[in-house]
């Protein structure tokens, strides 16, 4: 029987490991848990520990990479998430699909820490500010290598069509972000649903494709840090990470205007630990917690207390906190109708298959 014994060894090992896990799983039955769905690396780990210690609530964190992916998993509906963080337009979509329940902010002790301007901007996707709570915000702009591109050049999206930078331009591998420069250059609204305007933008992007180095969904920061390209269309958060790695990098938002994004928390209708979820959101608004998260993520924080406590240098860093004159030109994504979404998807495929 020696051979069967050998075969059973790995199984025993697996079961043993399972036993260790078992304790974690047991918490599942316990009502005192909180299932959190968030972007990858978007929450300082010590914050989780601190929350668990203070409240005795056990957090189960699930991470994702893109809002669409999140939507796929979320709508599949198999996991009952208690609290979710995602991007503006996705929040709007889920609100419109009736998946989101209002949050009772009256019970919050730290809600007033949030910057009213950002709450105001959030009204585009959450008109009453009743479904969502902003977490971080930022812009879409150009990350560029100062040894190859000058700051003035990056004041216009036109630079992304400049043939001298052939094979040195990185675009986003996500449809709406890549359409933003084209739409803004043509003077169209980034939330346009006009088929003709979208087709015009596509023509512009097809014209651009030969000089594009790559459409990256990830890694843009690393590629830029390695000096593999002169400039890239990125979110301000990624830009900050890249600039940390390479001093030659800088970030700017072109004058034609761009996207202002606000990542917000919401509580799904199917939430099973509502009380815990609200406790958690209130906790995130606390100054020390918000500061810890800011230092970990390095995106613009909507928490006024945090901003006030920062050094002037950081506070005025245009990469992290977009200045007002830039914000004026920036728009938050609106959720598009199903037809436009499919249209976008088709245009995107057309661009890629060129």
């Amino acid at each position, binding site marked *: 029987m020696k051979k069967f014994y050998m075969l059973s060894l790995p199984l025993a090992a697996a079961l043993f490991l399972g036993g260790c896990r078992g304790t974690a799983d047991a918490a599942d039955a316990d009502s005192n848990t909180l299932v959190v769905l968030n972007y990858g690396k978007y929450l300082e780990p010590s914050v989780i520990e601190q929350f668990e210690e203070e409240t005795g609530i056990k957090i189960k964190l699930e991470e994702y990479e893109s809002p669409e992916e999140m939507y796929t998993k979320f709508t599949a509906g198999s996991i009952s998430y208690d609290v979710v963080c995602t991007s503006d337009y996705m929040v709007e979509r889920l609100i419109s699909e009736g998946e989101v329940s209002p949050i009772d902010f009256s019970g919050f002790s730290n809600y007033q820490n949030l910057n009213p301007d950002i709450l105001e901007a959030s009204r585009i996707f959450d008109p009453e500010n009743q479904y969502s709570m902003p977490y971080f915000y930022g812009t879409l702009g150009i990350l560029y290598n100062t040894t190859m591109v000058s700051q003035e050049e990056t004041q216009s999206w036109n630079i992304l069509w400049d043939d001298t930078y052939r094979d040195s331009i990185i675009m986003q591998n996500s449809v709406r972000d890549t359409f933003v420069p084209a739409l803004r250059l043509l003077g169209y609204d980034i939330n346009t649903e006009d088929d003709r305007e979208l087709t015009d933008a596509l023509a512009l992007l097809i014209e651009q494709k030969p000089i594009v180095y790559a459409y990256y969904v990830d890694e843009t920061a690393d590629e830029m840090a390695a000096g593999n390209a002169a400039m890239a269309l990125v979110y301000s958060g990624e830009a900050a990470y890249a600039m940390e790695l*390479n001093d030659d990098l800088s970030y700017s938002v072109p004058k034609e205007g761009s996207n202002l994004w606000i990542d917000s928390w919401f509580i799904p209708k199917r939430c099973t630990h509502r009380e815990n979820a609200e406790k958690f959101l209130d906790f995130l608004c606390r100054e020390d917690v918000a500061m810890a998260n800011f230092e970990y993520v390095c995106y613009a924080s909507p928490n006024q207390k945090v901003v006030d406590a920062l050094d002037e240098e950081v506070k005025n860093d245009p990469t992290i906190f977009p200045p007002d004159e830039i914000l004026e030109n920036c728009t938050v994504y609106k959720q598009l109708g199903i037809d436009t979404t499919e249209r976008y998807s088709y245009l995107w495929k057309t661009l890629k298959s060129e």
Partner: protein
Amino acid sequence: MVKKWSERIYLGVIFLFLYLPILVLIGLSFNNSRSRVVWGGFTLKWYASCFTDETITGAFFTTLQITLAAAVISTLIGTLAAIGISAMKRKNRSIMLGATNIPLLNADIVTGISLMLLFVKFMNLGFVTVLIAHITFDIPYVILNVLPKLNQANRSTYEAALDLGASPAYAFYKVTWPEIKPGVFSGFLMAVTMSLDDFSITFFTKGAGVNTLSTMLYTELRKGIRPELYALSTILFLFAFLLLLVMNRRSDKQMTAGSF
């Protein structure tokens, strides 16, 4: 002699091709910089910290559990299935084999999504659903490893054992098992490897808080992969490499002088 050398060079080039990225990753695990593209000097610190970081060790143990459990269960089911299939009539056999090929030939993403569509109808996504998914795509590898060995195996020896009064189970253990053992073993290792390497299917079938090394890596792509993961991957790889060396030593000992 020239032929011998050109053969060796060719072998060397192919193996370099296959192992070069691994050398790069091992190099990265000693890189004293968080970035993949900037060399910050030599360090061993990631090896120290990869066992203290709870999220990493958590993902590592989940990976081990799923991989081992899926491999063992699929080896059991798959080996039994192979024996059963080999005893079937030609028509039934080709139907079974046709279905077996489906997970191998379908795009990973389609397999993953179709399983997710199924799971969400009947159960909550979690550890178990990942396990089921892994078993599902592991079984074909086991069957395809065991079946050829069964076909090579001499059927009459099994029947001879029955004739000599052995029970079917005993005859299987004493006669058939030694012949298919290498196939079962390599099926098991293929299953382990495929489970370890899978991303797409795990991603769609996993529940909240269940993270394997692959899915963890994926969420880290945008904001930089933690260097601890290179260290952990290196350890895992070296472990497999040592296993292979030990196996090879054992086979050296069994090597006969060759016939003359």
